[in-house]
């Protein structure tokens, strides 16, 4: 059985330290979660998810805030790899893209992606994040 936590865990994937700091602060200040894990690369985040592949029962419900433009592997690479994870992990994860991009191609690709629940814009506003959580969080 899944451990039913009061709040989901948050995973932040962004190469910008200031943004990671900002987003973690907002989550904690708003009391949205006690567990916020920050990853500065897609590879590091994927490694984290991979630690659950043989023990999917210990995986807790997670909200992932995903930046799109990262060096080496970008947000879309993350989505491709994440898609191959065990169903328990994928089903218990919500992915919110969080980017400052105005590039139409990137935005429409994110929008069309089956794993992306919604797109949030930088700077992240607490209200926008709360709205996304109430729209897409686990029921």
């Amino acid at each position, binding site marked *: 059985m899944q451990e039913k936590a009061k709040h989901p865990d948050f995973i932040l994937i962004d190469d910008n330290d200031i943004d990671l700091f900002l987003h973690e602060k*907002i989550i904690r200040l708003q009391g949205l979660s006690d567990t916020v894990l920050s990853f500065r690369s897609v590879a590091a985040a994927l490694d984290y998810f991979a630690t659950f592949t043989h023990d999917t029962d210990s995986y807790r419900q997670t909200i992932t805030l995903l930046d799109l433009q990262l060096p080496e592997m970008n947000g879309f690479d993350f989505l491709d790899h994440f898609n191959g994870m065990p169903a328990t992990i994928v089903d218990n994860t919500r992915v919110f893209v969080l980017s400052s991009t*105005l590039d139409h191609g990137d935005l429409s690709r994110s929008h069309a992606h089956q794993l992306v629940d919604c797109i949030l814009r930088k700077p992240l506003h607490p209200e926008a994040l709360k709205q996304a959580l109430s729209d897409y969080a686990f029921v």
Partner: protein
Amino acid sequence: MATERIRILYIDDEVNNLNAFRANFRRTYEIYTATNTLEARKTLQSIPVHVIIADQRMPGTSGVEFFNVIKENYPDPIRILLTGYTDVEDLIDAINKGQIYRFIRKPWDDYELQNTIRNAYEIYTTKKELESKIEELEKANDELSRFIYSASHDLRSPLMSVLGIINLSRLDDSVSDPNGYLKMIESSILRLDGFIQKIIEYYKNTKLQPDYEKIDFNALIYDCIEASRRQNNAVEFQVETEQEGEFYGDVFRISVILNNLISNAIKYQNPDNKDPTVKLTAQSDSHKAVLTIEDNGIGILSGHLNNIFKMFFRTKNINKPGTGIGLYIVKEALTRIGGNITVSSVYGQGTKFVITIPSQNARKG
């Protein structure tokens, strides 16, 4: 080009012709000869020749057949056919299959042949120059695209971080700021970001091909108002649309035009105005649409009316500096879709823009 000698490959099964050609022209050109097509191909493999001259009547492969075969792998050299006979079938064949530049009749006239070779070489070099220019342009275009892409991210990303920090400082109330410095930083950042967004918009306008679809002006106008409304919530909007028949247009550019004009109408309101109003109308049918955007704002000095559509033109006497690019984008976008714009304004009372856009019904479906 002046230092390069013209390289000619001449194929003829009659050795006497080859020798005569060589004797006449060896001081003028760099000459390669072949008595059959196999030999000729060997030469082509190693020598980048400019002009190929081939005799039509050869045992085995004819000149036309030879040209037809090699033009796949060696499209650049200019092809000249030498023929002793004026066989109509040959001529038709040559034109249709071999893409021959000129025919020269045997026995050739030295002067005529020399002229032909010189002209052929000029075509060769012009073609080459054109190719390299196209390549340069494609490269420049590609670099511009990448620049815009990175501008849309690398330039904006740190700005968004700064805005995020300002927001956070308000959220946790950790910064004492009695003089409102954070607000000033924020408004400067927003201005810079607005400018970056305009540049990207301008670039997209010049780059994207128009994409025509059916337009519902009522919905489009309300969408655009929604995008700008929060700049000043006091402004009242009045919208009237009349739509007869179906109008087809480029939604992206028409939105760009409306967004810029609505945003200006809000921005250049008089702060003392008790009821700031922006009135929008749209009348459309299957031929054209006429849109008006009218505000009761600060207006434009009549001396400035001729300049407002110029890039980076800004009026000085107002406390709301613009980027000087919005109306320029409007004008450019209208040019792309065949529309036009007129403006009338009374200083201190308001401004009215009238836009006419032709419908693209022929392109529907």
